[in-house]
């Protein structure tokens, strides 16, 4: 059984290759024909989805064997001066799960875009980028070594840059794209350093080999300082995820990234690319595991980001920005889950979050489409009746993210919160629980205001075309049932776990608490925004300062801008000044000196040939005398000797 599956798994490279092929086709062949471009792209991603499903089924059938023995195929890619890097594919439950999630969301988003991007001038370009993104993301997922992962990691960053700036004529989009790239680049700096240090220490970048090398080196007590080294490397590696997955303080780019087309936000900035950081931490978990300090740090950053982003989300008015901060907050969940040792919980949440957050972004896109590019939730209202499919699916998303059973978010969030408490991190648990309450509150606020609020007469919303609603329905289905993967005996955690597998039952008591927190949040929102029992304006009026801080996202963007504009650009100007006035000044000074001394020496050229001849002969005599008397020996006056002849 496993043998036949094995053959199937060897074909995993096709999954990223197909979208890449489609990218090339669109870029060089079909770019003039809009219909062909989208067809090619969607066909490629659907085929990839089919393959991913086949691999997923194969994994489920292989059972425990594949967990122990991932299928790795690799070939030499780079070889220089003792540095050997392979490229390959790894198929194990984790990568298979990611393959499935990415291909599913990507194909849904591409189908959805048929409707959403209708009539856009850059249609072919859009689909080319989409294909390139899918290809890079999938390539990253099945990477066998850190460098390969890093390469695709950067490529998804490029796609993100291109897609955020897709409407390049919008200044805001242009700036957001730039910001996204540069901010993640700061994280990548650390990641790259971490990779280099790892290679330097262990001589390999292969995940499996690295893990083995690390454990041997840790067991070897004689090697002093490994633990400290490991901590440093874990911190450096974690900088990458901080950038990519928008963890504080590198989170600033993600909300701005909403300037891209909404399907792009759904795919890249909610479901797939931003979880790459989480995925990386999971992949490198053996490293983090070896360093309690690093794990503590990861948990702390994750928990802080979760809470921090959730508080900002409460005060935002733009539908996409609320979702963006919600994404940040949920990423924080995943990160702190890894920090507290809930490996499978984090991965589980990654999957369910991909479903429901993509769903909600696409729902938001549908709303924005209907509202003719209005994004402020206070401009909306009464959409529930006009857009039933969007409304229902969005509602499912809200329930899922709020952790209401039996929707997907409940299972995953519960698992990781329970693990946090069980593994002895009560503070993280408390923060997570409170954030769950906040999440339920701001999501319900969004839903109640936009869908349930009073209708606005100036709007004429209408349900979106079927190309947009079908993906919504598909994703809503997965958001509903996706959590059930936690139930069977060979459940999610059986396949995806770290270390020894210990089956654990649901802790219904803790689950009840988090459900209550979610329901409380929804109830509060209901009271404020539907019942109007407490007016939201009065709250704002009572707490103007906190509201202003939240509204302005704790002024972090302003702080960064100030640093960039004053310190970095200021330093640049100072150095430029130094360059053109000091360094060039010295150069020009030397030139001037030369010119000046030449002016002086010029007097010596009288133009009188006789003077020249006199100087010439005088020099001859002097040189002659130097030769003759220089060494103080009269006998060296022998002319033959002087001319270099025999003595």
């Amino acid at each position: 059984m496993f043998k036949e599956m094995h053959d199937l798994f060897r074909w995993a490279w096709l999954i990223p290759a197909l979208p890449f092929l489609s990218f090339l086709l669109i870029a060089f062949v079909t770019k003039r024909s809009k219909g062909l471009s989208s067809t090619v792209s969607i066909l490629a991603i659907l085929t990839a989805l089919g393959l991913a499903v086949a691999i997923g089924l194969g994994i489920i059938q292989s059972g425990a064997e594949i967990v122990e023995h991932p299928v790795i195929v690799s070939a030499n890619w780079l070889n220089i001066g003792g540095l050997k890097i392979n490229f390959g594919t790894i198929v194990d439950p984790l990568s298979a799960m990611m393959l499935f999630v990415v291909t599913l969301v990507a194909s849904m988003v591409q189908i959805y875009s048929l409707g959403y991007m209708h009539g856009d001038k850059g249609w072919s370009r859009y689909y080319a980028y989409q294909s390139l993104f899918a290809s890079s993301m999938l390539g990253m997922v099945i990477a066998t070594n850190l460098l390969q992962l890093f390469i695709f990691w950067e490529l998804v960053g490029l796609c993100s840059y291109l897609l955020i700036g897709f409407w390049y004529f919008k200044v805001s989009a242009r700036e957001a794209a730039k910001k996204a790239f540069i901010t993640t680049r700061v994280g990548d700096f650390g990641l790259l350093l971490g990779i280099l240090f790892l290679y330097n220490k262990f001589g390999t970048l292969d995940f499996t080999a690295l893990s083995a090398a690390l454990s041997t080196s840790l067991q070897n007590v004689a090697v002093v300082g490994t633990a400290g080294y490991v901590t440093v490397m874990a911190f450096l590696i974690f900088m990458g995820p901080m950038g990519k997955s928008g963890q504080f303080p590198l989170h600033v780019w993600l909300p701005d990234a909403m300037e891209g087309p909404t399907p792009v936000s759904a795919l890249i900035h909610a479901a797939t690319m931003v979880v790459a950081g989480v995925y990386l931490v999971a992949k490198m978990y053996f490293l983090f595991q070896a360093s309690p300090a690093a794990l503590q740090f990861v948990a702390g950053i994750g928990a802080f980001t979760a809470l921090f982003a959730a508080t900002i989300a409460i005060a935002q008015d733009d539908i996409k920005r609320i979702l963006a901060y919600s994404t940040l907050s949920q990423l924080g969940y995943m990160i702190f889950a890894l920090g507290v040792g809930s490996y499978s919980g984090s991965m589980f949440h990654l999957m369910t979050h991909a479903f429901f957050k993509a769903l909600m972004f696409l729902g938001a896109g549908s709303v924005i489409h209907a509202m003719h590019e209005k994004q402020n939730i206070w401009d909306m209202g009464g959409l529930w009746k006009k857009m039933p499919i969007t409304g229902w699916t969005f509602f499912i998303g809200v329930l899922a993210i709020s952790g209401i059973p039996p929707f997907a978010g409940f299972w995953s969030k519960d698992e990781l919160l329970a693990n946090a408490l069980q593994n002895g991190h009560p503070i993280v648990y408390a923060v997570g629980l409170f954030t769950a309450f906040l999440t339920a509150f701001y999501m319900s606020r969004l839903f109640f205001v936009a869908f349930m609020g009073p209708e606005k007469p100036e709007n004429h919303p209408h349900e979106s075309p079927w190309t947009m609603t079908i993906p919504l329905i598909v994703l809503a289905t997965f958001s509903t049932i996706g959590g059930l993967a936690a139930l069977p005996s060979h459940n999610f955690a059986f396949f995806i776990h770290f270390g020894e597998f210990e089956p654990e039952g649901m802790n219904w008591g803790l689950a009840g608490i988090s459900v209550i927190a979610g329901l409380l949040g929804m109830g509060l929102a209901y009271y404020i925004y539907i019942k109007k029992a407490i007016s939201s304006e009065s709250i704002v009026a009572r707490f103007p300062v906190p509201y202003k801080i939240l509204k302005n996202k704790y002024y972090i963007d302003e702080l960064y801008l100030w640093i960039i504009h004053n310190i970095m650009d200021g330093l640049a100007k100072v150095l430029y000044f130094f360059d053109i006035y000091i360094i060039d000044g010295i150069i020009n000074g030397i030139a001037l000196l030369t010119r000046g001394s030449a002016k002086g020496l010029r007097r010596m050229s009288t133009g009188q040939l006789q003077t020249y001849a006199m100087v010439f002969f005088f020099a001859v005599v002097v040189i002659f005398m130097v030769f003759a008397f220089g060494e103080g020996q009269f006998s060296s006056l022998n002319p033959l000797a002087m001319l270099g002849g025999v003595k």
Partner: protein
Amino acid sequence: MSALPSGGSYLLPFILLAPLLAMFIIVFLPKEETKTIKIVAALGTFTSMVLSLYAFFAYNQAAGGMQFTLTIPWVPDLGVNLAFGVDGISLPMLLLTNLIGFSSIYASWNMEKRAKEFFALLLILITGVMGTFIARDLFIFFLFYEIVVIPIYIMVIIWGSTKRVSKEYAGMKLTIYLLIGSAFLLVGMVALYLAAAKQGHPTFMFDQLAARQNLYSAPFQKVAFGLMLFGFGSLISMFPFHSWSPDGYAGAPTAVSMIHAGVLKKIGGYGLIRLGIYVLPIGAKYWAPVIAVLAIANVLYAAFIALAQKDLKYVIGYSSVSHMGYVLIAIAALNPTAVGGAVAMMFAHGVMSALFFSMIGFIYEKTHTRNIPDLGGLAHQMPRLATGFIIAGMASLGLPSTINFISEFTIFMGTIKALPVQAILGIAGIIFTAVYTLRVIANVMFGPRRSEWDHLKDIKGAELVPLVVLGFVIFATGIFPNILFGLVNTGVTSSGLAKVLETVSQAKMGGLF
């Protein structure tokens, strides 16, 4: 082909002479026939490019060492030989020269002002640069290097453009820097020659000079390497000697900027490896800490200054200074990985900067300005040009799938062992590179449509050649790096360089710091 019965391959002389032949044909063409002149120039460089591609793939990597060699005694009494040959280090450089040479002809396709003289000089320039890379004899190396200086000066003065500094100033600065550098080089070269002639027949051959290392005392090596460091360092725009680079590029016409930034600068790095590390390893070891510090200054200082620039060419000029810092730090690391990375980086940066300069050349040609605030939204009118510009930008900031990433990565990999602190600072440079590159892309290409540029036509036909050729090379070698690295690897390992580096690393001697 590699072993003709007469005991030498004529492939390299053919590669060298093809542009020269084209130059002679151009000399005899009437000057009104600009179209014919351009076609002849393109044909000449095309022949060279195809032949060097052939050499690139026909090179026997298993055998390694110098191949396609040809040695003709020239001045036997002085030990000067017309000796040609390529190995894994010089062959990529030769190919690079030809790729850029070919593209530069097309990048100046719209040149109408004194086209005949322009293309004749350009071909001389290309020939000269090529000659430095295929020479196996120090004297010939130096000879070709001096040949290069003359056309550059004339071309900057006649076809250059005056912006922050006048083109006369730029040309003068460029030339004087190159000549001062070469003067120091000459002193070092003669000293080396005399030291090597103490035993056996006097020689200028690189391998002979390297083989006679036991003749060079440690103090001599230190002084000689210092001289060469000054000479080659000012050529590769090492930190305090870099200021010719931005001004020179800004003043020079597109083709000269391309060749200068693309390959001419690389002679500095090539020389430091071929002559510095190879022949004077102890000197290299002694100076390495200094080089490393200056290299970091290059990377960060120039990257910061690039942030403050308003002129497109200045941005790229400073960026190239910054990137050369990586080559220098790799040389300072003195290990095979880093040196291989340095060679690859020179190749990668050459292709990238040539593409950048050709795109900027088209922008300037069409809009008559290079001032970044005056430009904007050009992606609307010129999507293809924007594509080329973005490709170059992405290569510049070291995006994976471009050869630049792999080179940078290899360099970092090699340096982090030897010089961790400098390497970390150098890697920090990638952030600032990203900042200025993306700023330029955003401000020039993106943003709202500007009606004053509506009349511009996108690049088409012959103008596309640089984009296609150089873009293809960037991605082909970036996705399949072994095409390039296999060769570089042979150059570093089989040529004995690796062995030299190993001995150097074991040598117990303190550096300057």
